[in-house]
């Protein structure tokens, strides 16, 4: 009776609702993302969902395409005056969402703001900016503190977005909720934790989007995202998890996109702690692990095991040239014995990400076979970072995304001495590596730069401060009638060019 009451109630509700499906012409693109943006201030974040919305709201001086080629953005052309001086000629007649014209002063304001504490999260990119010189309303010269050729491509990152000085100053602390940019979309409403709605900016300088409204919902549950695609509640959904790949591929109304991502998940060693300070111990542990199997079991056919620290799509990568790692338990035992390590007990730390926990679980089982007893600690993000900062860890699983596709950013943030206290959680401090990194930055693109990074990758592999676990893929699903969309390797997917067929 109670049950049937339930069902009757549901039926009544449903009959009433199912009829009222939307019949209007398609002028809205609905995207199911995993998380909501944290802020729409381009320099107050360093997370992918926020970067994605900034990409639609703002423009940068230069654009980078999927292959890493630079094309003009707000700057029509540019000139490298020297290693530390880049001159940009700005596009004329570009309007902000508030109607003002974009001028050199705004570019200067945007960049200099990024060098203050407001830009602490993207300091990696902005710290080298010395000054921005306003030559005239449509010309600026960016002065760097020291030569760094990786800087230029970073300008295409969200941090390089040009914002409106007046609007930003007026909004003060609440700017992150009231963005004003020059991008093809402007913000209509944002319900935090749920969705934001953008609308086509009719005065956009470039090609205008073919649809009026862009709605991005945050749907944390992978199953729910796939269902949203299947039921037509979403036009585009990402990321898609491995167990739903086939489901989307086999669905004739849907299209699955896969693209290698510029990211590396790794099992790091705390190299300041005994016995992990010994490269032989690190190598022994590496030998004990069937990394290929672990990656396959945890990520289930998505991505691949990296060969080096620099992801394949980033220039000068030799990621795909390294032969696959082979597990050798006997060798591992011997190396461990040679290093004089007995009865090793260790902790493997990870955050809650399922695949990482899964990997840790398998690593634990495999280490057991060479007599290493390990305990897994799954920490919630804040506690995890804090613990790493305090150097209490042994092994830990973490990932690194090269949002800016320059090899420098793939390595420096993880292993350079200056990154200790920031994102260098292996606490690697290797003068030789630091020197190579310096040299790599000071060279313009070319064979010489390529050689340095190749050498660097092999050197890191030999030192083994971390075991590479996984190069991820950007996987997205769309409705069949959605065209002009392709996931990007840095996960900053763009919806500017999407149209319906």
């Amino acid at each position, binding site marked *: *009776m*109670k*049950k049937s*009451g*339930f069902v009757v*109630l*549901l039926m009544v*509700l*449903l009959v009433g*609702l*199912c009829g009222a499906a939307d019949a209007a012409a398609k002028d809205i693109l609905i995207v199911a993302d995993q998380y909501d943006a*944290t*802020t729409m201030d381009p320099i107050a974040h*360093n997370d992918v969902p926020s970067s994605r919305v900034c990409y639609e709201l703002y423009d940068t001086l230069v654009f980078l395409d999927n292959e890493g080629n630079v094309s003009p953005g707000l700057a029509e052309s540019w000139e490298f005056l020297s290693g530390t001086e880049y001159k940009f000629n700005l596009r004329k007649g570009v309007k902000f969402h508030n109607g003002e014209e974009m001028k050199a002063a705004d570019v200067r304001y945007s960049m200099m703001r990024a060098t203050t*504490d407001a830009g*602490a*999260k*993207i*300091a*990696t990119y902005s*710290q080298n900016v010395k000054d921005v010189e306003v030559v005239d309303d449509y010309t600026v010269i960016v002065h760097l503190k020291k030569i760094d050729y990786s800087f230029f491509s970073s300008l295409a990152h969200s941090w390089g977005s040009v914002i409106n000085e007046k609007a930003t100053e007026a909004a003060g*602390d*609440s*700017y*992150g*909720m009231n963005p004003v940019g020059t991008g093809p979309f402007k913000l209509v409403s944002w*319900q*935090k*934790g*749920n*969705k934001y709605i953008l609308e086509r900016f009719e005065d956009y300088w470039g090609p205008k989007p073919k649809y009026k409204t862009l709605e991005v*919902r*945050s*749907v*944390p*549950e992978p*199953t*729910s995202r796939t*269902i*949203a695609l*299947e*039921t037509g*509640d979403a036009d585009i959904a990402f990321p898609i998890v491995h167990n739903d790949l086939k489901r989307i591929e086999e669905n004739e109304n849907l299209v699955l996109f896969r693209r290698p991502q510029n990211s590396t998940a790794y099992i790091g060693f705390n190299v300041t702690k005994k016995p992990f300070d010994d490269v032989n111990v690190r190598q022994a542990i590496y030998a004990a692990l069937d990394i290929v199997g672990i990656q396959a079991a945890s990520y289930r056919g998505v991505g691949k095991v990296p060969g080096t620290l620099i992801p394949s799509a980033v220039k000068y990568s030799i990621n795909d040239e390294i032969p696959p790692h082979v597990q050798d338990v006997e060798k591992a035992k011997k190396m461990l014995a040679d290093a004089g390590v007995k009865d090793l007990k260790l902790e493997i730390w990870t955050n809650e990400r399922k695949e990482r926990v899964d990997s840790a679980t398998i690593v634990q089982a495999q280490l057991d076979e060479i007599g290493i007893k390990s305990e897994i600690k799954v920490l*919630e*993000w*804040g*506690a995890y*970072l*804090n*613990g790493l*900062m305090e150097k209490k860890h042994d092994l830990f699983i973490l990932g690194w995304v090269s949002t800016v596709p320059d090899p420098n950013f793939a390595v420096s*943030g993880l292993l350079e001495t200056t990154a200790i*206290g*920031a*994102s260098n959680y292996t606490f690697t401090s290797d003068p030789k590596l630091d020197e190579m990194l310096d040299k790599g930055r000071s060279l313009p693109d070319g064979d010489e730069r390529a050689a340095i990074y190749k050498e660097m990758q092999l050197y890191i592999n030999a030192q083994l401060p971390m075991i590479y676990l996984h190069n991820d893929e950007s996987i997205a699903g769309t409705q069949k009638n959605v065209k002009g969309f392709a996931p990007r390797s840095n996960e900053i997917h763009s919806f500017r060019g999407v149209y319906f067929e």
Partner: protein
Amino acid sequence: MILYIVRRILFLIPVLIGVAFCVFTLLYLTPGDPARMVLGEMATESAIQEFRRKEGMDKPFLIQFGNYIYKAVTKGDIGSSYITKRPVMNEIMATFPSTLKLAAFAIVIAVIIGLPCGILSAIKQYSIFDTLTMIFAMIGLSMPVFWLGLLLILLFSVYLRWLPPSGFDTFKAMILPSLALSAQSISMITRMTRSSMLEVVRADYIRTARAKGQKESVIIWVHALHNALIPIVTLCGLQFGQLLAGAILTESIFAVPGVGRLMVESIKMRDYPVVQGGVLFVAVAFSLVNLLVDLLYAYIDPRIKAQYR
């Protein structure tokens, strides 16, 4: 009566200060440096120091707490989110409607189903209907909401494709979370109604009514129900209060952008002002709902009204 309300609200103040103190202490003990979390892995040491200074985190614990209370009491300012920089109140108010809707929906479902089931069960005590209802109620009570939520998604979203598993914008999308959330309340209200009715039905004044020659239906629906309602109303109020704050799991399964999820996310992001403000807000809401219940109580029960002076 008004005096009573004012007194109750005044009484809330020390309780809230106590709550604030507890939360403050808990957060103080929580591992994870908010400055580091907020500013990111690449933040420089000076930026972090500046942040800590600006947020008053360099001061001793008690001074931090004192400042917080001082600002909250004198200016009604409970701080701004570390992450969005918006006032905490705005953050909460942005999420509260969803939670309120969810809780209200759930409690309405619970009353609509639970009350009649409980009454029928009591009238037909020991019948098959009664036994089945009680077993179902117990199952409902024992069902972990996160499991029920998954089962509902599996049934209604995956297999039947009737209802969306997430999104809280449309009425359609609100059905599943409300149902999942209401299961426990339905069971509790059913059980409470039954036992309350059974107790009342045995009361002397019901016998008096019978001795007057009154019809059984009038006895049940007028005499008994009115008296039985007193504990039921309390329970509904308590349940509603619980739902307001206890929807955390439901909100996370169905991606409802509510206060509960805001709390969990803020704890994870170490956005302490939001956590503090959120817990305080929930405590206030909880207490106000309880006050409301007490007032409703007086409306139903004249004996209690007499005590509210």
